């Protein structure tokens, strides 16, 4: 019935949409430390974007930066950190994300008696929920952001239209409550609906918001009046949703409006003009049409660091197929084929390329207009952050501004400039330490300090252990079992090696005649990574990450945006050549 096994797989994943943490481990360690005093010797310090001090020594004490200078005394109890010629930056600040907030388990959609009038939680109206109650410092996403250099994050609860309130956390491994820097800092709003119940569309979400907003204000004012003098007034009904929204209506709390594409940004700006709340635009991907308006009203902006993928020019596409077939024919025939190329497709490709370019140039454009922006990290993968920043820099963003958008700007937007964002005496000891300037292509992060706690990162060893005898064991035919919630997927992975190159094919039991050839095969010691691409309406990449033991392996596969799933298998025999 289904020709491609992974199509079924992916669809199952899509439907249940259960996420599980990727298995690829983080290489930080945080041993219990005897002393909370550190001494960083002879390093380059970038106290804030645009300045660099050389030959600096930094002392960290009790979670704070206690001294910076060329001649500082080493405290007797200090741990000396080998930071010679390393670059010390302020720990990065993630101004808005779901870091540390587990994805909710997908429950069956609640049956609602009257879909036009569902309970608030079903409708996605939960402004009373606080991110501070949900944050888990040991969640994998915290470690992922930390290893990307982030020491602070403002985290939002996950949810729909009004998912709840943001709180600011330090991204250390301490107890959840101890990592809390500031709770209930702002409220969130997004055009996300629970399909099938009111409000199920953007127009109803906006209508419902107007309704809630006005009533929050009425309720809040009524309660204040009642407190002063209850005579003649009705006793206020307790309404947790409205009372949580009330601070927004009196500008005591900003509203973070998730606005990715141009029309969303327009909706956000229009609603702000209409109701007058303080707003922060977040997850902005296509906001350049409204740059002037944003600038004029000094609305803080968080640009999404998720960028569109550029088309690889050398990949063979469907349209090129006839040309490929004729590659053995004479040159004359080839020419004819070329002239028959599809001008409509070519025109489209050019337009698309131009469109992608605009997305990449947005940050540089905002800088030129002097709009102070930070970044948000709701959708970007932590591992892509530095790569994407470099793309923005290649497209017109300056390094200094990029660094500011990682440090000082979000500190200002979050109102924590007195605590974080720069490397200064008296600030929280949040630091990122790299071996080369951070934006250098080859730079790697050596240490991250969060709240005076050291996290060390060792470079992935690519060259070592790559002995033929070790990796030779991968060659063979292997079974696989993938556990997807509600289902188990089985099949074979066949690994061959010819003239030093690995070839991997994947065959699912549900369609034994179909082979998927893997690309990007990388063997690193006992580890192999590769991916296959499967078409389920849109192409979806399935990444494999396997670690081999003697006669078995374990690992994970990740399927596009749907999450990653454990995979395991055993050796079955030699591959048939």
């Amino acid at each position: 019935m289904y020709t491609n096994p992974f199509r079924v797989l992916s669809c199952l994943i899509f439907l249940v949409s259960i996420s599980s943490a990727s298995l690829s481990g983080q290489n930080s360690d945080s041993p219990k430390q005897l002393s909370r005093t550190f001494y960083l010797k002879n390093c380059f310090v970038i106290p804030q974007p645009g300045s660099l001090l050389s030959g600096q020594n930094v002392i960290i004490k009790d979670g704070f930066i206690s001294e910076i200078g060329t001649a500082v005394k080493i405290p007797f109890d200090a741990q000396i950190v080998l930071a010679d010629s390393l670059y010390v930056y302020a720990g990065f600040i993630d101004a808005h994300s779901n870091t540390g907030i587990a994805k909710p388990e997908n429950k069956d959609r609640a049956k609602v008696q009257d879909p036009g009038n569902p309970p608030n939680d079903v409708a996605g109206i939960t402004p009373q929920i606080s991110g501070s109650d949900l944050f888990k410092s040991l969640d994998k996403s915290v470690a992922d952001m930390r290893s990307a250099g982030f020491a602070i994050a403002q985290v939002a609860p996950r949810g729909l239209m009004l998912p709840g309130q943001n709180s600011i956390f330090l991204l250390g491994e301490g107890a959840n409550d101890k990592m809390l820097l500031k709770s209930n800092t702002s409220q969130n709003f997004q055009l996300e609906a629970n399909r099938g119940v009111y409000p199920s569309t953007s127009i109803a979400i906006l209508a419902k918001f107007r309704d809630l907003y006005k009533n929050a204000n009425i309720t809040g004012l009524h309660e204040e009046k009642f407190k002063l003098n209850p005579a003649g007034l009705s006793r206020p009904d307790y309404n947790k949703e409205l009372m949580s929204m009330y601070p927004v209506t009196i500008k005591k709390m900003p509203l973070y409006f998730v606005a990715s594409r141009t029309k969303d940004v327009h909706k956000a700006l229009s609603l702000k003009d209409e109701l007058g709340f303080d707003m922060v635009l977040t997850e902005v991907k296509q906001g350049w049409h409204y740059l002037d308006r944003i600038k004029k009203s000094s609305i803080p902006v968080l640009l999404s660091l998720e960028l569109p993928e550029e088309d690889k020019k050398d990949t063979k596409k469907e349209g090129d197929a006839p040309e490929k077939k004729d590659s053995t024919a004479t040159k004359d025939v080839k020419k004819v084929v070329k002239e028959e190329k599809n001008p409509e497709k070519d025109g489209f490709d050019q337009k698309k390329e131009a469109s992608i370019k605009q997305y990449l140039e947005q940050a540089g454009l905002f800088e030129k207009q002097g709009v102070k922006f930070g970044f948000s990290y709701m959708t970007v993968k932590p591992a892509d952050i530095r790569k994407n920043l470099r793309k923005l820099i290649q497209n017109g963003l300056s390094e200094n501004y990029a660094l500011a958008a990682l440090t000082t700007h979000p500190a200002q937007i979050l109102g924590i400039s007195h605590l974080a964002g720069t490397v200064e005496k008296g600030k929280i000891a949040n630091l990122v330490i790299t071996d080369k300037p951070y934006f250098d292509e080859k730079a790697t992060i050596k240490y991250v300090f969060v709240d005076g706690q050291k996290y060390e990162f060792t470079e992935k060893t690519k060259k070592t252990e790559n002995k033929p005898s070790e990796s030779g064991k991968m060659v063979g035919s292997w079974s696989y079992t993938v556990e997807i919630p509600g289902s188990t997927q089985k099949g074979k992975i066949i690994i061959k090696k010819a003239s030093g190159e690995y070839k991997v094919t994947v065959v699912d039991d549900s369609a034994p005649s179909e082979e998927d050839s893997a690309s990007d095969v990388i063997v690193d010691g006992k580890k192999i990574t590769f991916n296959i691409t499967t078409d389920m309406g849109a192409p979806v990449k399935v990444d494999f990450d396997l670690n081999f033991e003697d006669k078995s392996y374990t690992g994970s596969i990740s399927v596009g945006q749907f999450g990653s799933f454990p995979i395991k298998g055993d050796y079955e025999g030699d591959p048939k050549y």
Partner: protein
Amino acid sequence: MNRLTIVLAVIMPVLLNAQNVLIKNGTVLTITKGVKENSDILVTNGKIARIDKNISAPNGTSIIDATGMFVMPGIIDAHSHIALDVVNEATNPVTAEVNVGDALDPLDVSIYRALAGGVTATHAMHGSANAVGGQCETIKLRYGTVNPDELRMEGAPRTIKFALGENPIRVHGEGNKIMPNTRMGVEQVFRNAFSEAQLYMKDWDDYKKGLRKSSPEYNLRNETMADILKGNIIIHCHSYRADEILMLMRVLKDYNINRICFQHVNEGFKVAPELAAFGAGASVFADWWAYKFEVYYSTAYNAAILTRNGVVTSINSDSEELIRHLYHEAAKTQRYGDLTDDEALALITINPAKQLGIDKRVGSLEVGKDADIAIFKGHPLSVYAVPQKTLVDGQVRFDIEKDPDDTRIDINPNEKYSTFYETERNYENSGCLRGISEMLMQESYAKFMRFKYSQNHTH
């Protein structure tokens, strides 16, 4: 083509801000003031400044030679769903508070296609899933902008969608087992909504007069219903059957509401005198029916019968395809009903303008009106008519000769398919939910499809 050229091609219509235009030597079909042969139209600042013979062009005026061509007012479509991201909030029988004006889509290439059919303004409507649907938006087809606000026809009266008959019954009664489950129920939904709004208004009046100390709850739905009661919003009601049309007129009489235009109104020919007496408009299809049970009793003479009975009648598209040849649809009334040229063209110009309350500004070629103009090769009521240029506020937004092949404004950077039909095809087949939903969603599947149907289906 380099990148700059592409960008320029896209924003050209915006850059060509030539609001001073002289359209020379055409056959001017004014609609309201007869036909003027070999005449010129001078446009300044987006308005029609003069219609006369041999006007000399002031400095800085761009000239369009219309020799041998027909110049008519831009076509107005009183029932359309183009340029909208959302059409139906199908979860409640009454959703007066929602407004499709919040979901305008200036990037919709259907706008350009409508311009290519001589259309300059449309009534962007909420769908017909609910008895009281959402508020609608009258828009001008200023294709080329990315800002939704620039589509709005500033100053146009507010309008709202109502719906009778099978659609609200199917979605709510059959779908969710709530009222309305019958045509009687639909009537009661209206009466309840209006009565509730009256109580709501009284609460607020009392509060404002100081008769009560605590503020009543704010309710945007009741606010909107109250605005209808106050006469601030024109009702546009999806309707087919004569009995229901009479029913709604009775309801409106009871609540002293008189601004209404019936949409589709396939059985309007049976109650044309009653519609005329009420002062209701009728916006019909030329010859489209039998797509569901309540739409069988229909005739292509509908528009002509309504017109001759004194009902302000228009012909609409309700379709991104039909909107491209509304002039053909109007011409059908000459085959079925012998309407005059002016009567037939009025069905797609001044009459829909009246129904939307914008006839003081558009719908005919008169001095002082907006320069929304369509230029045709061949008479627009001829089967050989081909639109050549379409101007909105004096700006050329469609030019059959100069426009690039691909006029899409915004290409999603993740878009895979180069053409519209590819996107559509893959949308239809997007295997994922389609194959699996039947297997896994089982009982909710039927409901899902019905929901999907109500989202897409609007006429």
